[in-house]
């Protein structure tokens, strides 16, 4: 049982996948010689060589598109988008090209490509380098979206994504790269795509979250009879696990690292409200970011992001009153 950092788990997953399958290769900006801006790919070049660990020019459209072409022709490219925001200059290749290749070729051509991207707030990178932006890709037919929440899930999701025959976006919360997790490393370990995980069982409320909000939710859940679910796959998400939990608890709260207007919780809560109609003990509740860009200042950013005490307070209020608490900014 060793404690490993998420950064190491991602590196291990990439390296193991390249050991197991010669068609896997990695490509991105400064991932090879420099070992990655977040040291995620350190040593990958030395181990697998320059033909399989490739530094690119600053040309997201070119290397994301090249990933599509390489995947169609029998390779399994793993493309790194250093920050998810950068996909804003190349989105077409992922959502319009990769996602329609199988459909337009009537199943003859497929795009087994993985796009890895660091994402999320909390480290003072400012409003153009701190978002999750899963809504840009979530719900695109033919495209899957997953979010890691620590070393174990990062390894398991990434291996599963690389083995998936279709394009998968893997979001890696940047703030978790350095976090260590107790995990009995197992190279055969996979997190099946489309499956959520119950991290903590509870009877009073189902708290669904993902990514960097998972540790926040777990801390907040202490002392509350909350069932915490790590959604893991944002699209297509695990309806059964969520619905079964809500059937037991009768209450649903989502904890989302996104403003309400673009968060994954809308679709999820809508589905719950439909499936559990008449069976909920309290109104569904969404804990989200405010409708504003991410502030740079440390004090502001740490308030901007939901903290464990804030989440605990929100959930406690819901349990105590069976009414929706106001978000912190309503008091301003």
């Amino acid at each position, binding site marked *: 049982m060793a404690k490993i950092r998420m950064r190491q788990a991602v590196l291990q997953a990439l390296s193991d996948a390249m050991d197991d399958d010669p068609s896997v290769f990695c490509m991105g900006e400064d991932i090879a010689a420099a070992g990655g801006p977040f040291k995620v790919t350190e040593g990958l070049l030395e181990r697998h060589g320059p033909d399989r660990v490739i530094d690119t020019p600053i040309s997201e459209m070119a290397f994301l*598109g090249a*990933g599509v072409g390489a*995947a*169609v*022709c*029998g390779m399994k490219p793993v493309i790194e988008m250093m920050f998810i925001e950068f996909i804003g200059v190349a989105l077409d290749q992922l959502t319009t*090209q990769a996602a329609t*290749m199988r459909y*337009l070729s009537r*199943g003859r051509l497929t795009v087994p490509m993985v796009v890895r991207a660091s994402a999320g707030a909390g480290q003072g990178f400012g409003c153009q380098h701190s978002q999750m932006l899963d809504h840009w890709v979530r719900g695109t037919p033919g495209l899957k979206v997953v979010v890691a929440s620590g070393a174990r899930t990062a390894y398991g999701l990434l291996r599963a994504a690389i083995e998936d025959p279709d394009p998968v976006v893997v979001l890696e919360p940047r703030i978790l790269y350095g976090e260590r997790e107790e995990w009995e490393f197992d190279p055969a370990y996979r997190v099946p795509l489309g499956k959520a995980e119950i991290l903590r069982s509870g009877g009073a409320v189902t708290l669904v979250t993902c990514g960097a909000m998972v540790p926040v939710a777990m801390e907040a859940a202490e002392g509350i009879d909350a069932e915490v679910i790590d959604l893991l796959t944002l699209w297509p998400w695990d309806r059964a696990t969520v619905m079964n939990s809500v059937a037991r608890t009768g209450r649903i709260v989502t904890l989302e690292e996104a403003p309400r207007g673009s968060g994954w919780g809308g679709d999820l809560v809508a589905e719950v409200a439909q499936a559990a109609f008449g069976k909920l003990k309290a109104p569904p509740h969404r804990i989200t970011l405010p409708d504003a860009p991410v502030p740079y200042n440390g004090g502001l950013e740490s308030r901007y992001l939901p903290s464990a005490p804030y989440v605990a307070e929100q959930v406690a209020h819901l349990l105590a009153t069976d009414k929706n608490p106001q978000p912190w900014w309503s008091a301003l």
Partner: protein
Amino acid sequence: MTLSNILTPRDRRAALADRPTQLARMIEIREVEAAIQGLFADGHVRGSTHLANGQEAVAVGIARAIDPDDVVTCTYRGHGHALALGVTPVGVIGEICGRTVGCAGGLGGSMHLVEPEVGLLPTFAIIGAGIPVACGAAMAARARGTDRVAVAIFGDGTANIGAFHESLNFAAILRLPVIFVCENNLYGEYTRMNLSTPVEDIAVRAAGYAIPGVIVDGQDADAVEVAMETAVARARAGEGPSLLEMKTYRYSGHSRSDPATYRLPGELDIWMKRDPIPLFADRLAAEGAIGVGGLDAMRAVVKEEVGLAVAEALAAPQPTLDEIFAHVDAASGGADRRWHFWSK
């Protein structure tokens, strides 16, 4: 020359080795485009369709210079390229009419012709999108130890989109076996090139990436073939990419019923004087490859074939609703029909 409709795409491709067949293929493209124009007028074609009549020599010249295992990314203006590469007239016309016999089962339409058997990826409807994808196919070819190359075909207007620039730089720095073919037909939609592009020759941009930039007579199928062969040889030898600019012209408007009133006066006539079909026919006659009246005889045969293809396409069934869901992703449950490039 053989009845194209009873041949497979790969057979049709192989048949191009025969020079008279090469001429017949150019005529076929011309006739198929004419047929599509008619089908559009008759309401059999939905949305939009982009004809390439006038550009036949580019398509056939490229198809002759590469192997069916080489990969091609092309655009919505891809009917001619699809036919040249080997897709059958029924596969093309059927797709454009949305029938099951279409090369994409009727779900893609005019802008998305496809045939992996002859290296054609689903043609791209977003400007520039196919260019980086060709780079990736070239990466795969090299990584898998084959000497396959990739060809990206796009227009003059597309030379102003970011993906063009990024791809040429990317391919140059990685020395990828890819050939960038710009079909300069002088117009991007309804805009003449001089109004959107400050240089007259797209080929000059190759210097910005230290790769060869070659201007080619796109009306001469042999000139296209020779230029392509040089670029392909260079690519297969590991010497990197090339940019070829095919000077050509489209006789039809940009799409649908565009009357192309924006053309410069007389421009169309000047280009028609160098129509690629008689130009090539005369050469074959001089070579003795076809006899007197050979062109007319050939045209008559092809016309008939295309007529048969139209009839077959219109007689074919419409796809069923389940096709919408058959191939969204691996879980869709559509039969596994995966094509594996370059697998022994």
